[in-house]
């Protein structure tokens, strides 16, 4: 999408969509022995990552002998992390990859960013699964309004002054979830813009690069500024 078309997309988004709420995330829970035992029933050794509290599962060569492939158990574990979230099918990101990825959705919005997914890495004899799916508090926090589309558009182009017509932008609206390496306290509606050069060069000299611009999509008086910042680091 050309950069001027992004402005239209922003206006269309805020006029056609319902204002998505913000969700608070449950504070880090201690890892319970009964939880560990539950996973061992499926051959999976489990732990929770500090400080994010997200779930890491491991299956060694030994457990392969006993239990076989535990993909359905992994997906079930992810469902328990946030039962109200839709989990999309577990698929390889591209042919021949040793990974399987399942993204998630909250209502009509995808969960975007490094988190919000199940990531399975398989070798011949072992398997690891990172379930970066944080549990939400039961009650949603209504948003007070959309961030003005023009404000978002200006912030997007601020790094490309004079070159606005030489970039392509792929916009997405979703809930941004961080990686397993970070604590996160809010799931906020967020715009993720992937920016690439319009002119990728020739076969002789390709200069393709890719960067992102990540900004909140809504504002909310009940959410303190410092907590907003925590969401994006």
């Amino acid at each position, binding site marked *: 999408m050309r950069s001027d078309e992004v402005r239209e997309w922003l206006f269309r988004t805020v006029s056609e969509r319902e204002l998505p709420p913000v969700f608070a995330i449950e504070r880090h829970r201690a890892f319970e022995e009964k939880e560990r035992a539950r996973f061992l029933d499926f051959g999976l050794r489990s732990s929770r990552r500090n400080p994010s509290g997200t779930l890491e599962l491991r299956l060694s060569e030994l*457990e392969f002998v006993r239990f076989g492939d535990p993909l359905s158990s992994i997906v079930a574990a992810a469902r328990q992390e946030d039962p109200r979230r839709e989990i999309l099918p577990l698929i390889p990101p591209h042919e021949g990859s*040793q990974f399987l990825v399942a993204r998630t959705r909250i209502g009509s919005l995808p969960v975007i960013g490094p988190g919000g997914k199940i990531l399975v890495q398989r070798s011949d004899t072992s398997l690891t699964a*990172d379930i970066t799916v944080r549990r939400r508090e039961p009650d949603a926090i209504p948003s007070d309004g959309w961030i003005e589309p023009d404000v978002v558009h200006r912030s997007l182009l601020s790094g490309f002054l004079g070159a606005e017509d030489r970039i392509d932008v792929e916009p997405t609206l979703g809930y941004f979830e961080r990686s397993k390496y970070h604590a996160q306290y809010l799931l906020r509606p967020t715009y993720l813009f992937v920016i690439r*050069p319009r*002119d990728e060069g020739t076969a002789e000299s390709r200069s393709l690069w890719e960067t992102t611009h990540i900004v909140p999509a809504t504002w909310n008086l009940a959410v303190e500024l410092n907590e907003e910042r925590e969401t994006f680091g």
Partner: protein
Amino acid sequence: MSLNQDEEAYIRLLRKLSVSHHYFSADDLRGLALTPQPQNPFHVISPANIQPETRFAFRQAFDQLLSKNQIRRAFLRRPLFELAEMARVARMIRDDAADRTEPLADLSKIAIAFSGFFQRRLSTLFLPPALECARRGPALFAGRLLKEGASLASLSADEWCTMPPSIFAAIADIAIFYVCTHGRIHQSQYQAALHDRYWQPSPLDFGANGPKVLVLDTCHGADRQPPFQNFWGIALQGTSVRLLLACEGPIVVDVPSTERGYAFADNIVRNDTSIADAWLLAVRSTSSTGTSRPVAIGLGDNVGDAQAMLSLTFHDLRSVGKRPPSLSSGSPVQFADRH
């Protein structure tokens, strides 16, 4: 005398416990061979230094195998004695190796380089944007490894990232050299952007005593079009580099995605994770767009040698006896990749 499926599984588990992990000694195994009935070894032996979870899981596995009543003690006797001998030799090698391959400070040196700001004359094409986060990947990587006792031998940044950026790494016997900047394919050759010029790696840039692992946190580090083998086979022939970690096509350099530096270091300090898998997992678990395609490429003088590099661990790199030798300058480089 052939073993059935359960008997093979029984022996395989015991081999893992005794030969790979040294929980059971040769004497333990000989004792097992002489019991009147097939036994769950955890009912008669209590190995020290085993994690409760591991003990629990293995004990359950043996119980499950024995509950089928398919294991014939007479058939196990000979394999158990053979296994005892293997365990004896393995333990002797381990003890001997432990004396000689104590991790050495010299072998855990790392080097990092990054460039985030570029002069306009760098490109006639649309200028790549400044990489304000270029420092994050290498810095987070180094920060995590320094906590584990590694030392930082060289840090080259922006204007001071000299040509070639590997110059310090090449003479300092570095374990891992981590570079983050823009990368491109120019006339079928890989080039990395420095502050005011492009760097096209060549064998002279690394030498035979340079880094064993080269991390290219740049775009186009290992593209299939043109095949990465064409370029890297020449650029790394006869050098110290045995493992190349990179991405096919573009790699995102933003705040969330550059956590891959930390994630990579965090993954490799786990002894059971290979450096190749650590990189693949790090990129996948931190990418903000999910579109980055990490690849790990083992290099060797033959295919088996290259394949073995995909299992190389950080502990191997730090041990004199396990550190891989440099590539031969007389034979073409062979590749094995994982993605």
